[in-house]
């Protein structure tokens, strides 16, 4: 701007047009522009260098993605590896109702909606694939919830067809469905999971922690077509749930279940349970329960069907407790196996109460008291024992304590402290009334006689040869004497000839107990039989309990035959060598003393 004077004038340089602005204005402008540049540079410096996380993340999110890696729930299998519960992938179909408006619901004068509509035809197609009623589907789609499940646990093939319809606002998720191939046979042991894969009952609940898989996640780079091109990092490795190997043997379980079912139907009984346990390892080879249910279809499930009676129900066991009383008397040298107890006249009055035998007996040896199951004889033997000694013995054989299998809902039964026992109560307890146990506890207690006087814990899972923690309760001598007495119950003159197994020597004890309803004994019975075989080297314990049989009610008649068939099947399945002369006619000719163990 150094024009001087009016020496030469182009019209653009006309002095009239010349702006006479103060110099500071242009400087101010220049300064402002510079400043704003400085701010921009500062801001970009801040974003790119000082605080670059945000943009970095935004940038990465364009090509990088975190993927969830699903983990499978562990399988449950029996001791031979046959699966009892397995998960397979399924799809669930959901809808966001706001994004899937129904044509029928949009009122005619309304302006055309921006999003696509589900036509009646599409709804019909979808309903057909989901096997749902059109109306029901429309009702769900009209819901004002942010997200509704249309159908869960859909086979993947059907889900693919749904996806092919490309309906707006309809999406799908991967989920798992649990299948139980052994169905009602193992329903109670295995249990089931809910729709979200969480254990609800049985082993599924007891081993929830181990079975549960932990989903992992990883971060990947995807290309334009959505294909994964690079693994950036693995954030968390997925961990599949652990497989659980149960001690159960499917075959034995099936034999136990079908025999129990047959007997319960035959005697029109209310319920029942069978426990088969391995004497050496304490493994539970079968745990059958009736009534049962199909775990694959639980629509009409009732609470009563769910109970695993052998574990969660206690009952007054009755005569199956007698051997323990007698064993304690033998152990403390109060009696010998051939001591004679006078059981006549089949009644015994203690205080104001009278106990009686169902069959009248005269003088019986201790062994015969067991063989013929005399209440009076047992009560007289119990009178020689102190309440404290009896209580200690009951405690040692596991009464009043849950058997510790880790099974949901297992109970310990009732055992009152000895200080509050009255003499009549001590007498009734000696033959199994006035205390309560579960079938599992009894099966465990009988390991004492099947083994050499020691008790072992039972286990639901395959133990694979881990040594058992045995606890000595009675001496070896007592256990052997008791085995001989218990074998007599299945021989002529005993209470359970029907429990015999051809080809094997079996020992056991019947139990016929009155049920208590509202504090009173009523004419309803629990018939049980617990025994083991082969007597020469016991391998298997079978415990049978049948609740409220009709027609017959003696343990030997109701549960004895079940015991016999389950035991025969179990011994055959395990390939255990027979230890008795096979032909019964020939056995009669043998000298009986040959079969005596004493």
């Amino acid at each position, binding site marked *: 701007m150094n024009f001087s004077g009016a020496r030469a004038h182009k019209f653009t340089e006309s002095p009239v047009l010349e702006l006479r602005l103060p110099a500071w204005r242009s400087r101010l402008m220049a300064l402002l522009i510079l400043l704003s540049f400085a701010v921009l540079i500062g801001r970009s410096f801040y974003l790119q260098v000082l605080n670059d996380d945000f943009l970095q993340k935004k940038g990465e999110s364009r090509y990088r993605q975190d993927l969830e890696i699903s983990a*499978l729930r562990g*399988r449950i299998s029996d001791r031979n590896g*046959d*699966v009892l519960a*397995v*998960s*397979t*992938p399924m799809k669930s179909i959901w809808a966001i109702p706001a994004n899937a408006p129904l044509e029928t619901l949009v009122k005619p004068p309304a302006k055309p909606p921006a999003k696509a509509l589900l036509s009646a035809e599409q709804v019909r197609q979808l309903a057909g694939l989901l096997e749902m009623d059109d109306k029901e589907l429309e009702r769900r789609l009209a819901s004002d919830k942010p997200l509704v499940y249309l159908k869960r646990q859909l086979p993947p093939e059907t889900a693919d067809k749904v996806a092919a319809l490309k309906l707006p606002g309809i999406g799908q998720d991967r989920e798992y469905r649990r*299948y139980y*191939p*052994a169905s009602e*046979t193992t329903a109670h042991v295995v249990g089931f999971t809910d729709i979200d894969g969480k254990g609800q009952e049985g082993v599924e609940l007891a081993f929830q922690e181990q079975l549960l898989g932990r989903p992992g996640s990883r971060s990947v780079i995807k290309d334009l077509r959505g*294909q*994964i*091109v*690079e*693994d950036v990092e693995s954030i968390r490795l997925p961990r599949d749930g652990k497989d659980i190997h149960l001690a159960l043997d*499917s*075959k034995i379980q*099936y034999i136990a279940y*079908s025999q129990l079912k047959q007997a319960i139907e035959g005697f029109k009984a209310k319920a029942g349970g069978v426990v088969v346990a391995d004497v050496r390892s304490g493994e539970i080879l079968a745990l059958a329960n009736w009534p049962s249910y199909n775990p694959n279809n639980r629509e009409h499930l009732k609470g009563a069907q769910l109970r695993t009676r052998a574990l969660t129900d206690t009952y007054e066991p009755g005569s199956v407790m007698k051997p323990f009383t007698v064993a304690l008397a033998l152990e403390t040298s109060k009696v010998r196996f051939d001591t004679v107890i006078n059981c006549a006249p089949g009644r015994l009055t203690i205080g104001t109460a009278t106990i009686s035998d169902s069959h009248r007996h005269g003088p019986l040896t201790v062994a015969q008291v067991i063989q013929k199951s005399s209440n009076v004889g047992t009560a007289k033997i119990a009178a020689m024992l102190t309440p404290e000694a009896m209580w200690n013995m009951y405690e040692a054989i596991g009464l009043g304590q849950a058997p510790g299998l880790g099974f949901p809902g297992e109970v310990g039964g009732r055992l009152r402290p000895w200080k509050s026992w009255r003499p009549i109560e001590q007498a009734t307890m000696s033959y199994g009334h006035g205390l309560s146990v579960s079938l599992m506890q009894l099966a465990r207690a009988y390991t004492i006689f099947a083994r050499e006087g020691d008790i072992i814990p039972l286990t639901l899972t395959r133990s694979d040869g881990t040594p058992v923690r045995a606890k000595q309760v009675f001496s070896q001598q007592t256990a052997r004497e008791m085995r001989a007495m218990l074998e007599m119950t299945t021989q002529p003159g005993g209470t359970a000839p029907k429990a015999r197994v*051809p*080809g094997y020597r079996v020992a056991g004890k019947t139990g016929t107990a009155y049920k208590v309803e509202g504090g009173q004994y009523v004419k309803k019975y629990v018939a049980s039989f617990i025994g083991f075989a082969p007597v020469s080297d016991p391998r298997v314990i079978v415990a049978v309990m049948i609740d409220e049989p009709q027609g017959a009610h003696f343990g030997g008649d109701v549960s004895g035959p079940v015991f016999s068939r389950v035991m025969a099947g179990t011994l055959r399945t395990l390939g255990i*060598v*027979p230890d008795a002369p*096979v*032909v019964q006619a020939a056995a009669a000719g043998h000298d009986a003393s040959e079969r005596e163990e004493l």
Partner: protein
Amino acid sequence: MARFINIALLLAMLACALSVVTSQHKARKLFQAMEAEQEHARQLDVEFGQLQLELKTWADLPRIEKTAREELKMRMPEADRIITATAGGR
């Protein structure tokens, strides 16, 4: 001399750059193949579970018993007709 070295270095750099590109490409191809195989492995695992299920359904014990008894007319042998064979010959 210096020019010769420069050209040589330039060529070497170009070669390196191109090999980086190819190896990156190969890596991605291999990675995709691996992904596909892993997916396949997962699917096979799922299929294994389903086959186990199917096996159990066919080998269902009630079904075996029914077939044996009804179609094949099999029955339990009497106890006196069972002979147990042991390895020791006892």
